[in-house]
């Protein structure tokens, strides 16, 4: 039985989906597939987008049709994806490890006490659980540079806010479901903010502009408000 499905998402994009599962081994394979597709890029390939358990190839159908006389652009891209699936070796790419400082002090963590109440745990235990493991960046999306990371300890599982906050500060470290993320800019947001990092997740003048990329492994470490301020002014 096939472990995946391939389908069009519009007349100029094709996705391969591995169901609704979030699995680091599978994701490693997907990241390797992206590298392979980009390495063997054909004219008309516009983008390859990795998500939790899918990969999407976005292309220019007309440009592909100019080089491929006998197959439809959809068939060409499906074959490209099947080929990447068959040949991508998830063992080849070692994830980059990134360390991210987080201050969990009350002034940086507007939702921490609420989360502690909902989870019937002291705030300190929430922080410990959040710091207690490394996370994988599954996807950058929602906002430029916003990393979707997982998976949280099951004891931290929490649904999104019923009504999103109109403004979440830039640098906010937040949780929702079994995911943790970082808001690169001030924005409305539905995740629960439990801390803040002085690092800039997105800087349009930097190359690359994103601090994190899909496939990265992230370790959070705790800093004091004072350290936060000195890191913030130093950056």
């Amino acid at each position, binding site marked *: 039985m096939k472990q995946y499905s391939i389908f069009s998402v*519009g*007349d100029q994009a094709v996705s391969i989906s591995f169901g609704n599962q979030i699995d680091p081994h599978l994701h490693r394979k997907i990241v390797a597939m992206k590298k392979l597709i980009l390495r063997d890029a054909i004219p008309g390939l*516009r*983008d390859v987008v990795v998500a939790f358990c899918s990969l999407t190839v976005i292309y220019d159908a007309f440009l592909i049709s100019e080089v491929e006389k006998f197959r439809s652009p959809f068939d060409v891209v499906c074959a490209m994806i099947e080929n990447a699936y068959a040949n991508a070796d998830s063992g080849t790419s070692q994830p980059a490890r990134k360390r991210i400082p987080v201050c969990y002090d009350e002034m940086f963590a507007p939702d921490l006490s609420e989360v502690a109440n909902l989870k019937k745990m002291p705030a300190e235990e929430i922080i410990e659980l959040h710091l207690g493991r490394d996370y994988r960046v599954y996807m*950058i999306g929602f906002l*430029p540079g916003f990393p979707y990371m997982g998976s949280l300890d099951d004891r931290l599982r929490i649904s999104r806010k019923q009504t999103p906050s109109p403004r979440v500060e830039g640098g906010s470290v937040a949780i929702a479901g079994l995911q943790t993320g970082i808001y690169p800019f001030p924005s409305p947001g539905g995740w629960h903010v439990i801390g803040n990092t002085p690092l800039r997740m997105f800087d349009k003048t930097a190359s690359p502009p994103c601090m994190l990329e899909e496939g990265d492994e992230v370790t959070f470490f705790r800093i004091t408000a004072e350290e936060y301020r000195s890191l913030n002014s130093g950056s």
Partner: protein
Amino acid sequence: MGLQIIKQGVLNTVQDAGRFGFAGWGINPGGVMDTYASRVANALVGNTLDEAVLEIHFPAGEIVFKEPALASITGADFSPALNDQPIPLWRPVLIPKDGLLRFSKKAWGERCYLAVHGGFGTTRWLGSSSTNLKIGAGGNGGRVLKANDTIGMRNAFAIEAADGRPVLLPWSVKRRTIYENADEISFIEGPEWDWLKDESKEEIARTSFVIKSSSDRMGYHLSPGVLQFKVTEDLVSTAVTFGTLQAMPDGNILILMADHQTTGGYPRIGHVTSADLPKLSQRGANSSVTLKKISREQAEKMVISLGQQLRAIRESCKNNLANYHAKHRFEL
């Protein structure tokens, strides 16, 4: 030199075909909404199809040409006039130095495109001149065109029209069938199409939707909400594209447009065909649309044939320009 904005329009930006290749950083492609009109505008003045253009909304403001230009305006008809003389759309025009471009009335469509021969001198970011307003990058320093802004032209040339009148060049693009049946938008099934109840699928086919006033370059909100689901599962976020029909929790459809986010977690019931996106882009708030489902094969044929059409338009305009040049010897 180049162009100067005399009066700011409501939303005038520099755009090209889009910033592709960076969705993995959460950076959307952006770019022009109506790729057909922008490409024809470029073809008419002898540019490559995906050169940067000005995307102009109404009220459009006023623009003065500080140097002569070969220009074209396509897309929406905002009744353009050069030094008070009306100029046609879809036709190249030689514009004299100090020519003042104004737009008096919104006669048809939502956004028009101004191209100049040789293209504009723009800020490129990640390989594209498209303006990303959220990030503040690309185009005109990452922001809308404001009064007193100047935008350079890479290729100015001297012309003989001395009396300040525009000169219409003798070619134009008349075949614009892609805007016919203006309110009928074709789409193909999305991955979650079969989550819809059968009645809901039929309802989509016979409903005349209205584009809500909250619609913009990010997305078009359609009303009324007619979607009912037989399957309701939580979806893990995945890539979305220009044209994705997202089913919102309240039963409404949101069509993602050029400035869409890169990923989404709502059911994708369908995707507007690429060949109908220009037409949809010229439909604005409070206008109606019907959604007609076609096969992926048909949609693919449409987009390929559109590409061929544009290629042919570009070739013929290029030849026309070369012939005109040979005859009149203005500088290219």
